[in-house]
């Protein structure tokens, strides 16, 4: 079992970028139609931007394990034995390049890079999540593990959840800061929790889009 309350930094994170997921982020979410087949020109441009983005994405993460009984709100952590809090980021470079393109009026390139950055941040969170579970493999045997869930979701209030995670983890280690409005900087960062215990609500983090009223959310997967 890894020690509770010890901050761990994850540096060597490898992520894969999926062209289809980038395309999904670039389509109109409100359209009833299935995603159309992209043109050759579009595929080529996304591939070119992906190559450029890959030189600028620096995935990093931190995490710490806590005794769940010490955490609030109780309804989120009561069934769990231990809870992992984590923060991860792809750093600021890609975000900055996307903004530069937009500022210079090169809107198409700007939006493609922004979609790649959003996708990369999610992939980083997935990879950090998996790495943590691998490191905890001895501990989680015969226990249940929730999907990762973030402040702002699952009735976990954004401001309270963000304050809690950032007060318990030294986010300077990966150069992520939290503004007074609870916004992470770099924007392409993800904070989350994982519950581990005998009878945790395994679907906590994925009970999302169908029942969620954030209809304009960038990650919404239902029409």
């Amino acid at each position, binding site marked *: 079992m890894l020690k509770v309350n010890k901050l761990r930094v994850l540096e060597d994170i490898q992520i894969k970028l999926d062209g289809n997921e980038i*395309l999904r982020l*670039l*389509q*109109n979410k*409100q*359209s*009833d*139609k*299935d*995603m*159309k087949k*992209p*043109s050759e020109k*579009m595929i080529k*441009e996304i591939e070119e931007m992906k190559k450029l983005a890959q030189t600028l994405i620096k995935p990093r993460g931190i995490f710490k394990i806590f005794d769940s009984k010490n955490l609030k709100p109780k309804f989120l952590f009561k069934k769990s034995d231990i809870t992992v809090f984590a923060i991860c980021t792809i750093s600021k470079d890609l975000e900055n390049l*996307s*903004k530069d393109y*937009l500022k210079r*009026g*090169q*809107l*198409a*390139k*700007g*939006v*493609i890079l*922004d*979609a790649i950055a959003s996708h990369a941040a999610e992939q980083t969170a997935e990879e950090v999540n998996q790495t943590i579970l691998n490191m905890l493999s001895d501990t989680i045997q015969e226990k249940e593990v929730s999907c990762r869930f973030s402040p*702002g979701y699952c009735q976990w209030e*954004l*401001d309270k959840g963000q304050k809690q995670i950032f007060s318990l983890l030294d986010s300077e280690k990966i150069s992520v800061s939290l*503004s*007074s*409005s*609870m*916004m992470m*900087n770099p*924007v392409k960062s993800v904070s989350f929790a994982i519950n581990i215990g005998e009878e945790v609500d395994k679907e906590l983090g994925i009970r999302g889009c169908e029942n969620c*009223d*954030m*209809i*304009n*959310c*960038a990650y919404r997967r239902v029409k």
Partner: protein
Amino acid sequence: MNFAENCKESILNGDIELAKKLADKAISEKIDIDLAIDAFSLAIREAGDLFEEGEFFLPELMRSAEAMKAAMTIFEPILKEGKEDRILGKVVIGTIEGDIHDIGKTLVAALLSAEGFEVHDLGADVPINTFIDKAVEVDAQIICISALLTTTMVGQKKLINQLKEKKLRDKFKILIGGAPISKKWVEEIGADGSAENAISAVKLAREVLGI
């Protein structure tokens, strides 16, 4: 293909160089500028419709906006000189203070500009008073306020309250946008409307000005 059809094609294909060439041609060959601008405008609206219908990806729409902007930049000196002032309205736009999300607001600004609005983009993390001062300074008809977080959307309400205190509320149409915005929030704070994407925002801007 006639001249107007070529103009339309250049926008729908996002062909910036062709759009510029056609704008130059309109000026050098003394083709009716209105004809060219109308063709470009119809095309950018069609590009918006194609995006809404799922036929265009966002970069394709953006490329159309880039082509439109390139053409309009060539017409700008002539439009400023003459009486052919085709500005649909003046818009001040920005993301509210405390919020550094930029992209949604930038896309709305780009499409409003392509449509023919004069857009003053204040950027992100913009203080309430900066919105109001700029709107008064440029004599804007519309203020667009973006907020992407539940923690920053309260700034939209504060801005409207500030306008009321300064007895300026009736001077501007207030449009709000951002992921957490609901119809209930629009009603609660007394905004004039909200749009779920950049295309709807342009339609809404026309609607509130009765264009």
